[in-house]
């Protein structure tokens, strides 16, 4: 029914191209891994509409509750069952102190960690690249041996910390360095927090 093109591995994409064997094609068929083969325009019998409206397995917009439930389940399962591999987070160093951050604050955090290590403080840096679906088991493994976590984020309302609390179990000792723009968080600010908390 389908060819597996680039094979899904750690963080690799998975594309399934449908081979149409009958004149009936369910573009959004419910499959074990949530991924269903996609036909390419020009393929006889493979016609479907890619639709932002909720739809049935054929892609036809649908208001049936069963279609909504099954297609939402399919998309959720596709994301949950996919193995994102090691690229879900960037990990650097080790130690009882960890800095947890994401996005544009990653670079100043790394620089601060390097400066801290030069002063004898072992620091682990964890930069999340995948926010959802959350990976609580993986983060728990990365936080083994970590006694205090500094969360660094460029945000006024501590959105990243709120997200972390919603999806992860953090060590008891957590501090948050959160600041809104326009001034970016500098390595010196992160370093000061680390050194004050040793």
């Amino acid at each position: 029914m389908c060819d597996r093109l680039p094979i899904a591995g750690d963080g690799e994409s998975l594309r399934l191209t449908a081979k149409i064997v009958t004149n009936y094609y369910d573009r959004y068929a419910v499959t074990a891994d949530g991924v269903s083969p996609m036909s390419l325009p020009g393929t006889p019998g493979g016609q479907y509409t890619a639709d932002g409206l909720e739809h049935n397995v054929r892609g036809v917009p649908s208001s049936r509750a069963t279609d909504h439930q099954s297609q939402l389940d399919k998309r959720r399962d596709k994301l949950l069952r996919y193995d994102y591999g090691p690229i879900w987070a960037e990990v650097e160093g080790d130690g009882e102190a960890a800095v947890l951050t994401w996005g544009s604050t990653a670079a100043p955090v790394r620089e601060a960690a390097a400066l801290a290590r030069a002063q004898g403080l072992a620091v682990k840096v964890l930069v999340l690249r995948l926010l959802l679906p959350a990976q609580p088991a993986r983060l728990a493994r990365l936080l083994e041996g970590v006694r205090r976590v500094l969360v660094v984020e460029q945000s006024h309302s501590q959105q990243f910390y709120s997200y972390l609390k919603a999806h992860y179990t953090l060590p008891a000792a957590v501090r948050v360095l959160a600041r809104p723009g326009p001034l970016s968080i500098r390595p010196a600010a992160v370093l000061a927090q680390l050194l004050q908390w040793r």
Partner: protein
Amino acid sequence: MQAALFRALAHLDLPPEHVTIISGIGCSSRLPAYTECYGFHGIHGRALPLATGLKLARPELTVIVASGDGDAFSIGGNHFLHACRRNVDLTCIIMDNEVYGMTKGQPSPTTASDWDSKLAPSGTHVRPLQPLAVALAAGAGFIARGFSGDPNGTARLLVEAIRHPGFALVHVLSPCVTYRPEEKLWKQQVHSIEMEPTAELAEAARRLFTDDGLSTGIFYRATLPPYPVTSQTRSDDLSVIEAEFVL
């Protein structure tokens, strides 16, 4: 409108798998899912860029855009201008009911300035857009108007539009019987321009600016060089397409 499109595609004997209908958002944009063609129900106002990308990647496909007056002239107004002048070989059907029907009756860019409604009491006081004149000024090479209540006549326009090499605009008067019930009168008011298409810009402009907005037919048809297709992508290989986007 759906009947007109089906008749046009049947007349041209186009295999449904070689036809792709791209739409934006709105009542008009539900069209792709009602066909047996390939379809893409995209995002508001962005049907033309989507269709442009598809046509350039897959020039052998017949690419049709289904849009409405809000989608094409307001949210996607800038795309509309540049699609006209870029002249990619597309057929752009714009179903115009002079109202945002799906969101319950807000005035659209083609709504008369004095149309009184709960959402715009005493009207918008803004002159309606003249989409065909705009298309002419922007460089479209095929400009026509049809009426959804005349599926055979509109089908004939669509056949000509699909055959036209380049960007072809078919503006279709499409009454919204829910929020603009007075548009039911279009059935009696619509009339043919009863003139052969012109390739003269000045004559086309004269026709469009002296038109009452309810005439149907081909106002302008000129042979302009279509946007060149340079894609070397093999149409059946997703990995090749993906590789083009690797940073």
